[in-house]
């Protein structure tokens, strides 16, 4: 059994007329979890609350088994957080930022930082404010990964990156996970991040948690059937969508198949759905 490193209980946070939670959620060592949801679902707010950049109205958060409060900040060195935008850095160059950050983290891994800088060809003498969004993101990543913290929280790390840079990051993250006991939470809209990295998917909608699922728990349940013949438009257990008169989409393969079998309805082909299709069904409210 893997150790719970982050435990969120009955968490609630109001920001203007938006409400996050209440929700319970936990994350275990050795796993990568992708947080997905529509824009404005509350993903960034959740990550900010985790990092104490915002304080919850109700509920508690435990890190490494300890309740976190603003007094003791030792846990902060065990978490590296990559926000969507880094504020107040514009007048510093990469070398200066490295100096600031590395002092703070006793586990700073200089060779890893140098490797990432070289891999992404990041100019360290140029001011942060003068870098393109993509290069800023690469520098942020190098500064975050090299902290070698136990927990890595990435808020849309690849949003502005080109295709090769994204591919390289996937390998870097896999390698980073193998450094020992590590935990990654990644908020992302990129299907590839979810497919190649995530063990678990947390689905959020309008501030509410729709659930945390192991990836194959979803792909094992959702299936699409090409039926042998026209299927009358009557309710079928598990079926959440019909793409035309002969294609059925089910969120519970077992239920649907036993119903079809009982009616002696045959299908030519049954196929699992891609994770992004499943997430879409959940977010448009057809599968929850």
């Amino acid at each position: 059994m893997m150790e719970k490193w982050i435990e969120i209980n009955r968490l609630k946070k109001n920001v203007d007329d938006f409400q996050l939670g209440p929700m319970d959620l936990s994350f275990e060592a050795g796993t990568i979890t992708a947080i997905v949801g529509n824009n404005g679902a509350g993903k960034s707010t959740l990550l900010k609350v985790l990092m104490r950049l915002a304080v919850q109205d109700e509920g508690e958060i435990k890190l490494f088994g300890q309740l976190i409060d603003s007094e003791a900040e030792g846990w902060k060195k065990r978490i590296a957080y990559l926000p969507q935008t880094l504020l107040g850095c514009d007048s510093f160059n990469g070398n200066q930022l490295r100096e600031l950050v590395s002092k703070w983290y006793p586990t700073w891994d200089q060779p890893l930082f140098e490797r990432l800088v070289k891999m992404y060809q990041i100019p360290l003498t140029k001011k942060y404010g003068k870098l393109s969004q993509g290069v800023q993101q690469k520098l942020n990543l190098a500064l975050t990964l090299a902290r070698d913290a136990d927990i890595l929280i990435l808020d849309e790390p690849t949003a502005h990156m080109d295709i090769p840079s994204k591919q390289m990051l996937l390998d870097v993250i896999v390698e980073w996970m193998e450094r020992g006991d590590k935990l990654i939470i990644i908020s992302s809209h990129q299907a590839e991040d979810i497919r190649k990295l995530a063990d678990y998917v947390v689905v959020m909608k309008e501030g509410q948690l729709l659930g945390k699922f192991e990836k194959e728990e979803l792909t094992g349940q959702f299936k699409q059937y090409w039926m042998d013949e026209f299927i009358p438009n009557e309710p079928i257990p598990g079926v959440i969508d019909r793409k035309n008169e002969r294609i059925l989409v089910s969120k519970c393969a077992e239920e649907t198949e036993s119903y079809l079998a009982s009616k002696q309805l045959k299908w030519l082909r049954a196929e699992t759905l891609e994770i992004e299709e499943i997430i879409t069904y959940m977010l448009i409210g057809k599968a929850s």
Partner: protein
Amino acid sequence: MELPIRLSKESREPIYHQIEEQIKALIAGGQLPAGTSLPSIRVLSKELEISVITTRRAYQNLEYQGFIRTTQGKGTFVAEIEASKKEEVTVSAVYHAIEKAVETALRHDYTLEQIEVVFQEIIASLEKKGGHNNDGKMD
């Protein structure tokens, strides 16, 4: 190293079982000799686009059945296995393939007699072409 594993989106078999069977077939067929280093659970999970939970389950089952062994800190390797065990895997793979073909035929309402005719025809045509391979390797 990368493993030539392909997961089927159509199979009813659970993913961990598909991985298990394919690795076993690669070992039994000699493509993965004893001592070959296997990818880590995290790397294989990325390649196959599945969770480490599923990959770990497949590796644990393979280890339990004696096909692979894990050395702390060094990684996972193909184990030395007996010829009789290899034979067992090969026989079960062949059975499995034919079973699937028969299922396809039954789904199209073939009778067992009709299936047998098709089977005999295929055998005959392969014999005529000399296309069957007899060196014991699986393709």
